[in-house]
């Protein structure tokens, strides 16, 4: 199997000395969807920033067979795109079309190529005809989809998605999951950071669990990981809570969106 991402002994400390990542080791196979789950502040987003070369941790990161360093950042970023958690950070141009065409234009494509790729990306996320719209006037769900289109227009083979479904209503989440299915079918490698167990269950091939010690604590198939209640409880991904079924009030661990038996 072709390993497209290899992370070996990655460590990162913030300028104030806070540990961001500690001894991170994992590999991602080409074409697979790996969902990285963990509680808030466990270093998931920091990991993405390190993979993209925005933050400079120690250790070895290999992407598409190239060892990441300062000199080859552009080459790495040509093949890998990241969608930020807040779409307002991702959409900085006056119109949606300007935003979607920003990446391809920077890659030096021809005008026709840029427009074709941008329209294709907008079509894929269901935003055809939104090109002339101002990003500010879009709904949150539309903004999220536009944000993913800004990366898809560059046609990367690896996509890093930071909390893609946070703040979305069920219908928008469902639309987003459909987009992820399409991308999976296209053979893209997806790395998704989330604490949405439902999303992990829906799209993951493998799940990587980050612990509060800022390092991966478990990795495996989604069924195996999501069935390990003790692991999820320990890492603050499920919690005990009380709830009511008519007259019956009972307590059990709760997984948001995840089906449970009574």
């Amino acid at each position, binding site marked *: 199997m072709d390993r497209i991402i290899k992370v070996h002994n990655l460590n990162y400390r913030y300028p104030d000395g806070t540990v961001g990542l500690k001894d991170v080791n994992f590999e991602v196979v080409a074409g697979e969807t790996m969902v990285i789950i963990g509680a808030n502040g466990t270093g998931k987003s920091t990991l993405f920033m390190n993979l993209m070369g925005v933050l400079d941790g120690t250790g070895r990161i290999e992407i598409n067979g190239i060892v990441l360093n300062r000199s080859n950042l552009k080459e790495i*970023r040509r093949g890998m795109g990241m969608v*930020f958690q807040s779409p307002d*950070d991702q959409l*900085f141009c006056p119109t949606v079309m300007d935003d979607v065409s*920003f990446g391809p234009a920077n890659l030096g494509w021809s005008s026709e190529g840029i427009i074709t790729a941008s329209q294709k990306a907008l079509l894929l996320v269901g935003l055809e005809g939104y090109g002339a719209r101002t990003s500010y006037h879009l709904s949150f769900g539309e903004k999220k989809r536009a944000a993913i289109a800004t990366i898809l227009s560059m046609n990367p083979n690896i996509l890093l998605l930071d909390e893609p479904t946070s703040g979305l209503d069920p219908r928008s989440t469902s639309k987003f999951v459909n987009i992820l299915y399409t991308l999976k079918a296209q053979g893209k490698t997806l790395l998704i950071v989330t604490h949405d167990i439902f999303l992990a269950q829906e799209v993951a091939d493998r799940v990587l669990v980050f612990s509060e010690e800022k390092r991966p604590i478990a990795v495996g198939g989604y069924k195996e990981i999501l069935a390990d209640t003790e692991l999820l409880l320990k890492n603050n991904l499920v919690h005990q809570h009380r709830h009511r079924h008519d007259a019956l009030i009972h307590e059990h661990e709760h997984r948001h969106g995840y089906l449970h038996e009574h």
Partner: protein
Amino acid sequence: MRVIAILMITTNRLVENLDPRAKIVSFLAIILCIILTPITRYKDFELYFLLILSLTFFSETTVGQIFKRTCVLIPFILAMALFVPFLKEGQVWGYLNVGYWKFAVTYEGAWMFLNVMVKSGLSILLFVLASSTTTFPDFLKGLDMLRAPRLLIMLTSFMYRYIFVLIEEARRLIRARDMRYFGRRYKEQFLVVGYMVGGLFIRTFERAERIYSAMVLRGFSGEIPCVKRFRLSYKDFLFTAAIFILLTGIVSGLIYKIGCIKIPDARVWIGL
């Protein structure tokens, strides 16, 4: 009738459908001519006004809408120009008595007031027409294609994109304060406002860092490449040429002279 109907349909959105470059160049030329024309040539200003009015007829915007929007901006100009007749030194024209005070109005001041009001009024009319017929992103794109400084365009574009986000964040902060403020300890409120401004600044700064990261990750290296989406057509060239010819006619006094030619039984023509 059919020809007139077709003509009406094709010219109805003429200004809207023009390339932003053609509009920027033409409108800028009109504004320059307005500013550089001496106020004593008042007939020229009538012609400028007629020109702007006729441009409005070739757009979807109505004259009423244009005047309404202009009226919103005029008070700002009036506030600035109001003191000019009293402050400008020169030959006294008359006096204005306000209570115990007596203010002298000079001829030079009155002319300057008229100068400011007429020129800025016409410029605002044109500005309102331009903003009603061109979207801001298209206007920026036009400026970029006319090789205006990229840095300036980038800053303006970011301002346009994020000003509403900032206003929204400021509103959220004010709302959060209002929900927990019950109208006491007035002096402390200045401190609270200071905290809010500081908080807003930090949020803006952090957002700017994230935006910059998002740009860098998509290949940004200091320049925003321009994707050409506009193409100059014969209509744009015709429009620009027509404006320049008309302006030359007005500035040289040719149009005024033509208007003064006496042709027997041509009353409408003479009336112009």
